[in-house]
């Protein structure tokens, strides 16, 4: 053995060996900073989810995409993954073993751990699609997948894509109008970052010219933030659903689009479901701690009885030269300094809410109240005057 030698062995260069031991676990990302985007695909049965999946698996797009087919019962679990091998187009079916559902005291849900294992196993995966059968509400899945940046996971929630059936959409939205149950279609559209309006050929063939536009407006009245993509047989340009970075606090281009929004984002007409999009604006900068309290009362305490599904915003924080972004899915939210305000930019707060039972005045007033600004002097005078007379 070397220990018995008088002479030491030859020392080796430090950069010749790997810095950390080669991964035996799913912790390391494929490259240092690269996470594989995960897209959740949801939608009514028959809307074309499988069509979309098959299209993505078979189209020659040069990307390695894994599609996870999932049966959501009571638990969210991964059973089977199909991987499109890119150029060659061969489909590989893999079984990904679930981490036995032991949540224990782990931060990452077993689904996330399973996806990380998949990324670990399959080098150079470009994207993961999670196709959800029978999942009415994508929110719990989004909550599980929207990980803290601090975890530096090899997977990252990229967007929620909802496929809707142009031919049957109106029927599905009207279905439970009179009952207390919520059609899944509302939730799936409300949570979507991209809505694929499929089977448009069937509608334009039968209906009038403006039929498609009407459907788009119907969708926008529920969720005016989502991108709507019309399609026939789900044959879409993949760049419209991949790499959306919809939950990325720092690559906030989609949030910054809010800044440029000239026309109102708020739904003009209240949709029958009571689900709508609201946008509030305020020029004066706000106190960060107070904004936290404000949003927590809305999201956590359900103050004002409003049911918020998604929330996205740009904040102008007092005493900060950084534009802050606000993102929320149900109760989970974060406020993050994204970048510095540019000189030519007008600093502004602009926040979009998508949800049920939203009230615009309540939101505007409560936001202003929490902005820690004393009321302007002349209002005091008015009040004083009115008690006198």
């Amino acid at each position, binding site marked *: 053995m070397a220990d018995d030698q008088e*002479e030491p062995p030859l020392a080796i260069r*430090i950069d010749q060996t790997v810095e950390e031991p080669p991964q035996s676990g799913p912790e390391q990302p494929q490259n240092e900073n690269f996470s594989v985007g995960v897209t959740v695909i949801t939608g009514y049965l028959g809307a074309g989810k499988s069509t979309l999946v098959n299209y993505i698996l078979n189209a020659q797009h040069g990307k390695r995409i894994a599609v996870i087919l999932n049966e959501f019962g009571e638990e969210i679990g991964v059973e089977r993954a199909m991987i499109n091998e890119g150029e060659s187009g061969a489909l590989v079916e893999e079984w990904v073993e679930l981490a036995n559902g032991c949540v*224990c*005291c782990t931060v990452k849900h077993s689904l996330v751990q399973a996806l990380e294992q998949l990324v670990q196993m399959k080098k150079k995966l470009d994207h993961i699609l999670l196709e959800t059968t029978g999942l009415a509400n994508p929110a719990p899945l989004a909550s599980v997948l929207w990980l*803290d940046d601090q*975890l530096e996971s090899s997977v990252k929630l990229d967007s929620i894509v909802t496929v809707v059936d142009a031919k049957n959409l109106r029927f599905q939205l009207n279905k439970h109008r009179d009952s207390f149950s919520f059609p899944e279609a509302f939730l799936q559209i409300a949570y979507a970052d991209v809505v694929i309006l499929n089977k448009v050929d069937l509608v334009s063939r039968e209906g009038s010219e403006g039929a498609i536009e009407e459907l788009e407006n119907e969708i926008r009245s529920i969720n005016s933030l989502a991108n709507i993509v019309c399609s026939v047989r789900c044959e879409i340009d993949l760049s419209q659903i991949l790499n959306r970075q919809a939950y990325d606090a720092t690559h906030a281009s989609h949030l910054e689009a809010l800044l440029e929004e000239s026309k109102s984002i708020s739904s003009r007409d209240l949709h029958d479901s009571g689900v709508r999009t609201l946008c509030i604006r305020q020029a004066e900068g706000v106190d960060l701690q107070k904004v936290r309290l404000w949003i927590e009362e809305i999201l956590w305490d359900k103050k004002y009885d409003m049911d918020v599904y998604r929330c996205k915003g740009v904040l102008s924080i007092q005493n900060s030269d950084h534009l802050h972004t606000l993102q929320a899915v149900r109760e989970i939210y974060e406020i993050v300094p994204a970048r510095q305000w540019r000189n030519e930019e007008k600093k502004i707060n602009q926040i979009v809410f998508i949800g049920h039972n939203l009230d615009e005045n309540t939101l505007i007033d409560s936001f202003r109240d929490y902005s820690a600004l004393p009321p302007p002097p002349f209002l005091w005078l008015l009040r004083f005057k009115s008690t006198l007379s």
Partner: protein
Amino acid sequence: MDGGSNAAETLSCARCGKPASLQCPKCVELKLPREGAAFCTQDCFKASWSSHKSIHLKAKLPSLGTDGAGEQKSDLVSDGWLYCLRKGQSRTPKLPPFNWTGTLRPYPISFKRIVPAHIDKPDWADDGIPKVEPNSDLQHRVEIKTPDQIERMRETCRIAREVLDAAARMIRPGVTTDEIDRVVHEATIAAGAYPSPLNYHFFPKSCCTSVNEVICHGIPDARKLEDGDIINVDVTVYYKGVHGDLNETYFVGNVDEASRKLVQCTYECLDKAISIVKPGVRFRDVGEVINRHASMSGLSVVKSYCGHGIGELFHCAPNIPHYGRNKAVGVMKAGQTFTIEPMINAGVWRDQMWPDGWTAVTADGKRSAQFEHTLLVTETGVEVLPARLASSPDVFPWLNK
């Protein structure tokens, strides 16, 4: 920022202190830390060789199959002690292959310990599968405990404390973690309680024993504790329908200064976190406090495991991360009970899993320490349910100052 020092880009020569670009190949082979194994030139390396090579010798002591320890292991295997696999669902007579991150290795484990029939058991005791817990709505909302539940938790946590103290009195070189497990098991049964970890998702033993680079969920086995080790013992007991959970990290014999600092800093992290607990405090702030204190000492915070709600369920809402900038939902309210259990590493924060499916180790093989308490939020602050008793063994030097 996390304080994790990632095997620094600018290493210094172990002999002369100049920037080092060479390292000892034997150390690389044995996966020993690069600090102390880096040299600026072959000459410095050569000059240090006679003293440096003793590091290799020390690292080889718990080796497999080539010396006394190896023979002892094969004795155990023929006695029926086997290595654990698949979270405890299966066993194997051979050490499973793995790219071990440090010098610690698993040892064979003993047979399953019996729990007498008169002990009230949780629903996983027989088949290893919790049924009520995963489907409970307490996974999604934080329970406010009734006065009766609170009183039961006080009793249960008192038992858990006494059981842990009994384990702490066992800690010395030469004792196996299996013997510690036996003491925990028997003390728990004697108090009329069930050791919650036993068969929880098939976990094979009655407590977790985590040595050196093991972060948490170490499985008690045939390995003897060595002078210089640090060991965490994590005890949870189930009594009168509720669980009580705590853990502490102990010194085995004389430990080096770095380990002393690691353990003390971890203790302080928990202490500081507990000091902010009161109604109205956000759960996410716990991670900020812990992260700040650990970073200041140049240590890193494990991110994969978190504090958890506890009561009639072993693990339930809320999830309390120990790292900063997390999105934990909710604020503390009087009547809530949960654990805070920071795991702090000397090196990087990342963890890996051993082939047994339970043992979490540091990715760089450096040491990790942990402390845990079950806490009750009161109207004005916090009550530490399994707090140290006057009779608790005096094993933490910093408490005497």
